[in-house]
């Protein structure tokens, strides 16, 4: 692996734009990810996350702007890809190769692989390697790509919704791997929809909406923004004064004794406020990070 100037950012995008016909998929995106940083990349479907990652990987050419990976232009894949490993959102493998053969190919052509760590990862992800890839489920294909990526010593890991096909147990194993990668000094760009996952591993989070990066925030700010959505049904009418309860906001009466509201912080004051009423149904939903961000910044979801 080439030595890297520690002053260079892992990812640097300046005015990155991509236009498909009349659609502006990515609009003047500026982004900087430091070496060793774990960056969460969020946004609704069609926001341009994958297009941005494809431009960083040199798979799509920007209409305007530029992207660099540790100082090397993204389109010069021979140089830029020595610094990174990638797990695509929808992993497709060669149907006639076994898992072991796919790992072998990726290690031989990749930016350098720690074979001992790879064997350990195969164990941890409980991956059967002697099957042809055509027999693999979505989750198993994803595991092959994850093992191949985490086993490299590339200083940047670009992971595009890498846990969408994994069960919760494997999702936790994935989080441990990200933490280990960060501990080794690898930067991680993680596109995800899973709040717990992003909260558990990311240092910073950026949200993309309609092709524009609307916010980049640290994890502390993220936690501050965290809210729960309460759905309450009462036998009688909705009690008055719920909006005055500490932490409660966005009270919306849906009619027939039903109300939806958001709560930040401790639930005790709210529970005390409704204790005297006949609550027939109570459900709590954790909004997605995107909803939090979009709500907080006053952007209507597309």
């Amino acid at each position, binding site marked *: 692996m080439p030595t890297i100037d520690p002053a260079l950012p892992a990812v640097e995008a300046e005015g990155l734009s991509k236009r498909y016909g009349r659609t502006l998929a990515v609009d003047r995106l500026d982004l900087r990810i430091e070496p060793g940083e774990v960056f969460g990349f969020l946004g609704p479907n069609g926001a341009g996350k994958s297009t941005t990652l494809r431009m960083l990987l*040199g*798979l799509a050419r920007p209409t305007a702007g530029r992207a660099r990976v540790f100082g090397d232009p993204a389109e010069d894949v021979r140089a830029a*890809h020595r610094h990174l490993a990638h797990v695509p959102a929808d992993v497709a493998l060669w149907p006639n190769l076994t898992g072991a053969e796919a790992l072998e190919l990726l290690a031989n052509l990749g930016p350098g692989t720690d074979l001992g760590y790879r064997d350990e990862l195969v164990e941890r992800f409980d991956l059967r390697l002697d099957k*042809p890839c055509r027999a693999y489920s979505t989750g198993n294909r994803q595991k092959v790509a994850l093992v191949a990526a985490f086993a490299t010593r590339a200083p940047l890991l670009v992971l595009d919704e890498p846990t969408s096909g994994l069960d919760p147990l494997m999702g936790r194993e994935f989080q441990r791997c990200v933490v280990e990668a960060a501990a080794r000094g690898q930067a991680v760009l993680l596109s995800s929809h899973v709040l717990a996952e992003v909260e558990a591993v990311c240092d910073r989070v950026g949200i993309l909406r309609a092709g524009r990066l609307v916010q980049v925030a640290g994890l502390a700010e993220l936690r501050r923004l965290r809210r729960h959505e309460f759905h309450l049904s009462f036998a009688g009418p909705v009690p008055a004064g719920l909006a005055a309860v500490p932490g409660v906001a966005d009270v919306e009466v849906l009619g027939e004794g039903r109300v939806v509201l958001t709560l930040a912080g401790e639930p005790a004051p709210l529970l005390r406020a409704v204790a005297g009423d006949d609550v027939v149904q109570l459900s709590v939903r954790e909004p997605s990070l995107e909803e939090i961000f979009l709500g907080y910044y006053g952007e209507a979801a597309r």
Partner: protein
Amino acid sequence: MSAVAAPTAPATPAVGEPGRAVTAHLVRELRRGTLVVAALLALLPPVVVVQYRETVGGELGAGALQVLATNPAIRTLFGPAVALDDPGGFTVWRTGLMTTVLVAVWALLSTVRVTRGEEDAGRWALLRAGTLPARSLLLRVAAVALAAQAVVGAALAAGLLVVGTEPAGALLHGAGTALTGAAFVMLGLACAQVLPDRRSAAGAGGAVLAVAFMARMVADGSEPFGWLRWLSPFGVLGQVRPYAADDPVPLLVLAGMALLPAVLAFVAVERRDVGAGLVRVPDERAPRTALLGSSTGFAVRRGARGWAAWTAGVAAYYLLVGLLTVSLTGFLGDNPQFASAAAEAGFTGMGSAEGYLAAVFALLAVPGGLFAASRIAADAADESAGRHVLLLSLPVSRRAQLAGHAAVLALGCTLLAALAGTAAWAGARIAGSGLGVAAGVGGALNTVPVMLVSLGAAVLAFGVLPRAVLAVGAVPAAGGFLLLVFSDTFGWPPAVRALSPYAHVAAVPVEAHDGAGAVGLLIVALLLTAAGVAAHGRRDVRA
């Protein structure tokens, strides 16, 4: 809690017509290919009819036609010539085998695509999750694919009728072609049920097609083996003899040939799981790590099995050609009339083993070029299925990967030609010919530049038109061959003829190697490839 009010006007449940929906879906899947094949068959033969009336008929006397008709060498290439004095008969002889093979290949591959191909992609399970049982699904595939053959046969007959050939001959030729297509639809259906994936199903069907083609060739070239034609749809079709005997009985044999694989398909579909075939593949094996060390090595590995299959088929064909050479050319030597007649019809030097081989070697560039184009098309399919994303995330440039693959395929084409030439030589030696190994291998290698032009066209298409790689790649090798044949038969202007890459290849071994032509073709191939590699590196990756 108050109950949710029941909807006052219950929604009308959608009336399920799953059968009709599946049929409509299949029609959409097969529509485009059917129209393309039908258009070709409706246009090409009438052009030959018209051209025949203008030129050939007047120039070739009855005697010359008779020589052509009885010449076994010509018969191996084009089938029996039975009514050359009739515009329709001449057209059937000159284009019939070609159009039938086209229909057969299309029928086989499109049937495998809409059955096993859809199953490989996971979409068949969606259809099976509906209310239709497997057998009715298969029945609908068969019905739609057979209807497509009927459309194609009708288009062929209509074209021949419009230009005023005998109605009986036109109808029988159209019906025979449609029934041949039907037999290969059923073969595709059976292969898709028995074998576990699209590649092996298409491969097994293709092998049957190749054997049927060669059985016809042997039967037409060698009278003691004449009975072989009754085992091959191509041979049976020849027995209809449109515009001469107009015999409908062989059509019944063709229909019978379609029945056997149909029964197999419908028995097999009930006895297997979705996603599996009757033939099971082991789902575990030890890793084989050869050729996984570089992107070019991996290109070799991906293409090796396909190359072996194409080469085996081609080499078997040329072994047969070699074996037949002596008996054919012995006959030719005794016919002084033949040389001039054959030359006028576009064949020269057919009186010797070398001349016959040179004519047959010209054909070699068709499968060779199609092989190269099909491998680049497989690259395009891998790309759109996302199988290339992991490779393209590695520190190897896209240009280097594609250029490496093109180099591997160029080598593959050369080896394929060398082995075909060796097979022809070996066959000729076994049969007692004095043909030298240099003449055999040299004649085959002589066609490699044409294959490479097809490869270059396919690479260019991959760079600028990735959805049409196979079609564009086939233009030089297959389209160029047709252009040359028609130019020679009908005396088209030299400028038109020169557009065909085959026009720049000498008839080796009967003629001397055309060095300048070969260099010119290689330069064209190189330019096409370089342009395609550059364009591929510049464009966005699909999927």
